[in-house]
């Protein structure tokens, strides 16, 4: 019997019991739709987290002073004074895997312009900081190396700070504002960046030369931390190793010998890549869990098909007997029921894919969850449900094919 005849027979059998066929396919529909929706949600949140991390900076590596023990008491890392300007200069001159580096010292305080004022943080940095944090100056210019050398009292402000200090929309560039008692001339305004994924306002900041902050505000010789950018994401690890080696040498930390263990690092290095892979491992886990739950519902749907096919074979025993007596071979009967099962599962699959895509967009527009529908998730769930049809249709079809025509034709 050729395929088109088999197809017609299967279609007729499916259409003869519309409600039953629909309910059977419903298992597959729900299974496929949930696989697609769950993977879309999982992938969507992964992508949104990755995007947020990428927004923080480009291939960023952060070097913090390490927690140290003083007489058995572990100290607050921010009180550590182990990162010095000399470290920054050594890294800047010697590191081959980084393209930008900036020290960072911060202080908080009140910014005043006439009778307007705001509380904000001042970051003492080098011009490289813009590249590292992916900031751009929209109006005016960034301060330069000359300003750093002379510890100039200049600054670049974020949009939030500018709006508080100049509520009437005047151009802040060229104006002088005060931080405490120290006057700063605004040379530029940063482009708006908005809130980050943690809800922090990324425009509420002021950048100034690190020399100015260190000497004129804090009067300290150590650094809060050092930020740098690896040349590419791939060399982040190599850059980290390089930085570790340079800092250990500068800090005169002893390597392990036969008798003594190596000195602990007195600094911590965190890379954006590390953060990103940590975050995506969480969302990958989420995706796997969601996918597994959805996959189980697909299997349940397949069992539904198997069950109905068994009922169908029993119910149509006489028909099978008749078909055999007029010349259907076992393989013809097998194919007939297999195609029927596949038809149910593939139809369910198609409806499920459409429903899954629809549900993903519904989740996106109602709950505002980020979604991303991966083409492979559609292809995969479609392939899986076809396989489900073959797998769960096989045993009932085999049972039908092995019926004895003599008994089947007289089956009551």
């Amino acid at each position, binding site marked *: *019997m050729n395929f088109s005849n088999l197809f017609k027979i299967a279609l007729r059998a499916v259409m*003869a019991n519309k409600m039953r066929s629909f309910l059977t396919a419903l298992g597959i529909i729900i299974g496929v739709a949930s696989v697609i929706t769950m993977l879309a949600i999982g992938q969507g949140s992964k992508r949104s987290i990755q995007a947020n991390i990428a927004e923080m900076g480009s291939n960023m590596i952060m070097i913090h002073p390490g927690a140290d023990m003083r007489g058995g008491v572990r100290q607050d890392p921010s009180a550590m004074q182990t990162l010095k300007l000399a470290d920054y200069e050594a890294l800047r001159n010697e590191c081959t895997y980084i393209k930008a580096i900036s020290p960072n010292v911060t202080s908080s305080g009140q910014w005043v312009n006439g009778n307007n004022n705001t509380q904000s943080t001042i970051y003492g940095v080098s011009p490289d900081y813009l590249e590292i944090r992916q900031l751009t100056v929209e109006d005016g210019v960034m301060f330069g190396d000359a300003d750093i050398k002379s510890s100039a009292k200049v600054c670049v402000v974020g949009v939030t700070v500018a709006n508080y200090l100049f509520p009437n929309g005047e151009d802040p560039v060229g104006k002088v504002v005060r931080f405490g008692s120290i006057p700063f001339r605004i040379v530029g305004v940063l482009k708006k960046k908005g809130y980050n994924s943690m809800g922090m306002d990324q425009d509420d900041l002021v950048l100034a030369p690190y020399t100015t902050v260190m000497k004129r505000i804090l009067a300290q010789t150590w650094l809060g931390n050092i930020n740098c950018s690896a040349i590419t994401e791939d060399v982040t690890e190599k850059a980290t190793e390089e930085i570790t080696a340079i800092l250990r040498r500068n800090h005169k930390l002893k390597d392990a010998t036969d008798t003594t263990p190596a000195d602990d690092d007195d600094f911590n290095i965190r890379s954006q890549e590390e953060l990103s892979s940590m975050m995506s491992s969480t969302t990958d886990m989420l995706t796997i869990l969601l996918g597994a739950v959805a996959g189980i519902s697909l299997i349940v749907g397949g069992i539904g098909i198997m069950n109905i096919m068994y009922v169908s074979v029993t119910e149509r025993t006489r028909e099978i007997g*008749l078909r055999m007596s*007029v*010349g259907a*071979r076992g393989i013809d009967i097998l194919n007939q029921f297999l195609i029927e099962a596949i038809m149910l599962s593939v139809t369910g699959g198609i409806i499920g894919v459409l429903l899954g895509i629809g549900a993903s967009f519904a989740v996106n527009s109602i709950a505002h969850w980020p979604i991303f529908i991966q083409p492979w998730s559609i292809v995969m769930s479609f392939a899986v449900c076809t396989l489900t049809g073959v797998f769960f249709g096989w045993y009932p079809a085999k049972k039908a094919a092995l019926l004895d025509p*003599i008994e089947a034709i007289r089956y009551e």
Partner: protein
Amino acid sequence: MQENKVVIELQNVKRDFVVGEETVHALKGVSFKIHEGEFVTIMGKSGSGKSTLLNQLGCLDTPTSGEYLLDGVAVRTMSKSQRAVLRNRKIGFIFQSYNLLPKTTSVENVELPLMYNRNVGSKERTERAIRALEAVGLGERLYHKSNQMSGGQMQRVAIARALVNDPAVILADEATGNLDTRTSFEILVLFQKLHAEGRTIIFVTHNPDIAHYSSRNIELRDGKVISDTTNLNIQSAAEALAALPKSDD
């Protein structure tokens, strides 16, 4: 009597069934030949082995020993699917309970055997089905569904289905068993018409009256042939039908 081609030849056919620890000998060595164009009734009470014999003749089962030649082909050593193909080409089955596909039109029911024949295209299939239905007098009911027809009409569809592949032999199993007297005679008239056209018909029944309308009668008892007689005085089913009192409805 002229010697026609031998369509069916049984040579000492035996069939044993193992039921639990016992062996039941359903057929204990049956031999006969049936020639082309014969209308043979096979009679016997229940338990006589006639169903087993029918299954043998219909290639649904194979003999334990002995040989069965259908149209010159030895059946005993054939595989299941070879026998399926043989049934498809050589045999037309008619069952007591019609066994039509439910919710399916007459034409589609009759087309069924041809669906399993790769050599017949869909156009030829429909044409042959329509011709077979016309031959049994159902030219007006080609597209009626099986559940919209009377028992007699359904049995005619079944007969058309048995004719459509132009079989070497038509096997009827109690084909009038579910029908009232009048309809039974109508069906017998149809069988006699097919016989007159030269078809080979084997009609298995427990009803001795039907033997009057066939050309030969084989009687079975306990798995053996106890009589094999040629009917020299074939009665006309059409006359018997005309002689029936008119029904009231």
